[in-house]
């Protein structure tokens, strides 16, 4: 399995990364090297094996459905690149 330039562009689009034309061949080479390296996993027999998604040796906890935090708009907006009143501001989405 080898990634072509069109696939590289499609992945970049999904990942919301703007790539220059010059970056495509380099990334193509590197990603194909990594995919070539992980190819060995295809040889492992995984019949009947349940996937392991996490490192925790426990079930996730539930907590009471109550508000434990909030009412701190200034702290939350302090790092915003742009704001209008108590909102994050972005370029116009709807004309």
């Amino acid at each position, binding site marked *: 399995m080898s*990634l072509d330039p069109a*696939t*590289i562009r499609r*992945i*970049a689009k*999904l*990942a*919301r*990364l*703007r*790539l220059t034309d010059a970056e495509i061949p380099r*990334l193509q080479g*590197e*990603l194909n*090297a*990594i*995919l070539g*390296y*992980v190819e*060995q*996993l*295809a040889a*492992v027999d*995984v019949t009947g*094996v*349940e*996937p*392991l*998604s*996490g*490192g*925790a*040796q*426990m079930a*996730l*906890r539930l*907590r009471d459905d109550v508000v434990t935090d909030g009412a*701190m708009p200034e*702290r*939350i907006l*302090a*790092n*915003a*690149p*742009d704001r209008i009143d108590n909102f*994050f501001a*972005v*370029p*116009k*989405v709807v004309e």
Partner: protein
Amino acid sequence: MNPLDWTIAEALDALAARRISAVELTEAHLSAISALNPRLNAFITETPELARAQAQEADAARAAGAAPKLSGIPLAIKDLFCTEGVRTTAGSKILDPFIPPYDSTVTAQLKAAGAITLGKANLDEFAMGSSNITSAYGQVENPWQRADGKPLAPGGSSGGSAAAVAARIAMGATGTDTGGSIRQPAAFTGIAGIKPTYGRCSRFGIVAFASSLDQAGPMARSTEDCAILLDAMSGFDPRDSTSAERAVPDFRAACARGVKGLRIGIPAEYRVDGMDPTIEKLWQAGIEWLQSAGATIVDISLPHTKFGLPVYYIVAPAEASSNLARYDGVRFGARVDGEDLIDLYERTRAAGFGAEVKRRIMIGTYVLSAGYYDAYYLRAQKIRALILHDFHTAFAQTTGVDAILTPTAPSAAFALGEKMDDPVTMYLNDVFTVPASLAGVPAMSIPAGLDQNGLPLGLQVIGRHFDEETVFAVAGALEAAAGFSALPALRGSALR
């Protein structure tokens, strides 16, 4: 003895006996940082004013008879831990302007324990790397030197933390370990570092890389110092959904427990082809040290070891691509304006992320994308289950071993610039550390010897889930037998 050479245990005794004040100890470290950091680049952000204020508080607390456990101990904090009011970059340009409005649980606990914050330590960008060269804030130089004089990598991703502790410009440091990021730099710089069991330290407020693997841990110059720091860093936190609801045992007491009667496993699969003979010899020495101290050595098999790295290089980028989706130039961090919202996202992320981060986001996005999820991500998760099963079998209660001994890394520190061209070659650094990360078991590196170039080498002790005590006991025995006393060329205590 120069106070900069003290262990944390020695410094706590000296502070308690009023042989030194927290202000004096902190000033000594701040001067050493001023002298050495321009060369080492171990700190991205220095916080001398904060350190001085904390040191005065520590002296006042001690005078009032209310000094907490780590009162007056100057530490470096990996710049992946959010620190209230102190810039936190994760080694990335995209977080260059980010000043957290809150503290991570680990740093809050360290502050409450009276530790002094010297500054924020350099790291690979978003902790993605084994060399510290992917930092947007410049590479870190390893304080150790070899004969050819080429500057060496400190390892990574906790390379700034490791370099600061080895160079005696911090007494200890926080690190994080996703696939070896505490243990490999500890080995490269001749210090100790432990990745505790997944869930032992809260991940709340640590910039996320791969959430099912990320674990915080201490780096210091002795086993006991790591135990002292881990005690302050760990414990249940309701704000981390995978935090373990378990009592924190007396790690420090475990360091001197000895290994009499323990069964130590030596996994055949860690004897890789082309292994450096010096490292093989050191591993053998470690086996003999533990045997002499009363342990039984058992040959074991961890049959899926060789699949650890390829599993890791699917799972970690997959989680990273998801976690790093939050950097969109809208809520915090750097922004590059665009013609519309999508354009803003794409330009912001293109400008803000470095090459290694982009590479991992791309791989992660691909292995999670429709049509490839089952073949890559799901398959990797199944093999991850097999790797965990290997450890469960090895550690089985009645027939199994109590701990496993391996080398930490396949080589000593390499020169900055070496191994840099090919990502897969760089990934091989983590071959011995990744399996324990995938299984979530605790693992520690301790300095055990020098290679033919006079560079430090580490041995790794892997334990059962939540049995850091046995890991500390084995590490303590190895430390006592190894008698590692070599010093790096660049260090605060050698300044004139």
